[in-house]
């Protein structure tokens, strides 16, 4: 399970928040300092090289290949022909149908993100305010569900929501009659909230746990209202966690396709299935490749904007009383 994806923007923001490069010593440099720097640089290169090389060979080169494919042509049997470069696949993306698919996927991902935030913030708050030992145990309890096969879990939810399943039986027993939410967008959002809630909980927990509670106390001494202290102090101080959690829930929800197909009945096409379909049933690799390239670019832009924003916010935030 990809729960710890959340840490990424978190870490990214922090590096952005401080000076970009690890700061070398102050201005006047003695030969000894220069030598230390040089040695540090060598050590850095040395320890980064194996991992960097690995990513270069097994990620960047393949990524380059697929980018090349996005400019290629599909033959009538669905093979990708590498002769005759063109922008056809990119032009196709401007099609209304595909734009509609993208908009729908973004809307569902947005709903999922908002719901996760509403549920996860108080939950993380609760965890972070427990005694340290209990905290660790509760965190493990949060993690355990993610150690089982994701697909099997989705099928368990499907059973729960089925029109003859326990949820329906319960609602009938309580006099609400049978209910049908399986194979609706509601079920998709519910399934995605289930799948990605941890991505929201963990960064929020980290942010709340690290927060300096003395600031809240100080605020209360001045303002008195608990709600005001929460909105004016706690929320701004945990902003990095909120943003990280939202990004981490939004990104996988946007591309998800197993949950929409199994719980949503695949009645409305979402971008994740559409991309997968291009690489499989439709065998239109150039279109699949160009959509993937666009998704990567969009994510990179989002992460970069987010880094800049949070860097600014934290800088100004630090200056405020």
């Amino acid at each position, binding site marked *: *399970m990809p*729960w*710890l*994806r959340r*840490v*990424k923007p978190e*870490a*990214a923001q922090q*590096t952005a928040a401080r000076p970009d490069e*690890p700061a070398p010593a102050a201005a006047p440099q003695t030969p000894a300092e220069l030598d230390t720097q040089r040695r*540090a*640089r*060598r*050590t*850095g*290169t040395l*320890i*980064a090289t194996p*991992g960097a090389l*690995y*990513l270069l060979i*097994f*990620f960047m080169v*393949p990524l380059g*290949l*697929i980018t090349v494919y996005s400019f290629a042509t599909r033959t009538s049997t669905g093979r990708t022909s590498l002769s005759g470069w063109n922008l056809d696949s990119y032009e196709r993306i401007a099609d209304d149908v595909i734009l509609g698919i993208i908009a729908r996927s973004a809307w569902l991902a947005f709903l999922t993100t908002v719901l996760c935030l509403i*549920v*996860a913030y108080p939950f993380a708050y*609760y965890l972070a305010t427990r005694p340290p030992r209990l905290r*660790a145990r509760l965190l*493990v309890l*949060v993690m*355990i569900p993610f*150690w*089982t*096969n*994701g*697909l*099997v*879990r989705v*099928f*368990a939810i499907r059973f729960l929501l089925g029109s003859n399943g326990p949820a329906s039986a319960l609602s009938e027993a309580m006099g609400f009659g049978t209910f049908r939410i399986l194979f609706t967008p509601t079920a998709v959002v519910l399934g995605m909230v289930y799948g990605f*809630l941890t991505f929201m909980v963990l960064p929020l927990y*980290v942010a709340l746990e690290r927060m300096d509670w003395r600031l*809240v106390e100080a605020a*209360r001494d001045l303002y*008195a*209202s*608990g709600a005001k202290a929460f909105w004016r102090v706690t929320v701004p101080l945990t902003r990095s966690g909120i943003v990280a959690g939202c990004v981490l829930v939004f990104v996988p929800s946007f*591309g998800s396709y197993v949950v929409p197909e199994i719980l949503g009945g695949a009645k409305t096409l979402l971008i*994740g299935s559409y*991309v*997968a379909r291009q690489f499989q049933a439709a065998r239109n*690799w150039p279109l*699949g490749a160009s959509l*993937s390239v666009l*998704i*990567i670019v969009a*994510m*990179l832009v989002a992460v970069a904007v987010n880094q800049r924003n949070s860097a600014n916010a934290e800088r100004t935030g630090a200056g405020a009383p």
Partner: protein
Amino acid sequence: MSSLGTAGAKASARRLLKANAWFVFAFLYVPIVVLVVFSFNDSERVNVWQGLSPRWYGEALGNTQIISALRVSLIVAISSTIVSTVLGTAVALALDRYRFKGRRALDGTVYLPIVIPDITMAVMLLVFFAEAFKLIDTFGPRLTLGVTTVALSHIAFNISFVAVVVRARLDQFDRTLEEAARDLYATPWGTFRRVTLPLIAPGIAAGALLALALSLDDVVISAFTAGPGATTLPVYVFSTIRQGVTPELNAISTLMLAASITLVVASLALQRPRSTTP
């Protein structure tokens, strides 16, 4: 703790928080309970209850395809976890501590495997292996996809996850400790081994556990980069679900759940003596 605010409002807020926490735990665990309960279902169909029976555990363990898939999964998960933990930790350290040529480029690319759609990564790795094999083929050896290529692919995404987790830990790290150590011991390796490593160990452990979980759960990338005899358990599960979910799959999932809980509990128990010192 602050003593301000009306006691009544505070108590009700606390109750709400607690209720919400219970709700979240229930939400997370109900499907797991269903899964475990149905693994003891006597019925052939997963969603039709026909009485209690341990028969599916027997059938799952007697199914040579499931066992061989489990074996492949474990080999891939363990080897990719070890390699990606070492490489990912090194990348995190380098990015956090050092300034070197190509640092910015590495900093940018290390996050890409996390945001790229699975299916894209799967296809691009397949294309890559195909081209690489053709290249190698001209020099003689004829290679085929297999357990090795699945493991190589898992390392490719796991490095990033490990690097990101370890780096988050490094961010919280008090550097004066290292400086103090260096003043006393002098050798960088000594400092690393005696000070840095123990302090970031929880981060490394978290990264490794994450890598293990991701590897054990991946379907798409494994399906595309596997070759003859290299079907992993999730791939097997995914392809049999076409024919309907059998309680056999629930039984295997329950066994894996039990194994991972044991693992987590054991690692917590091992960590305890150290973690009591803040």
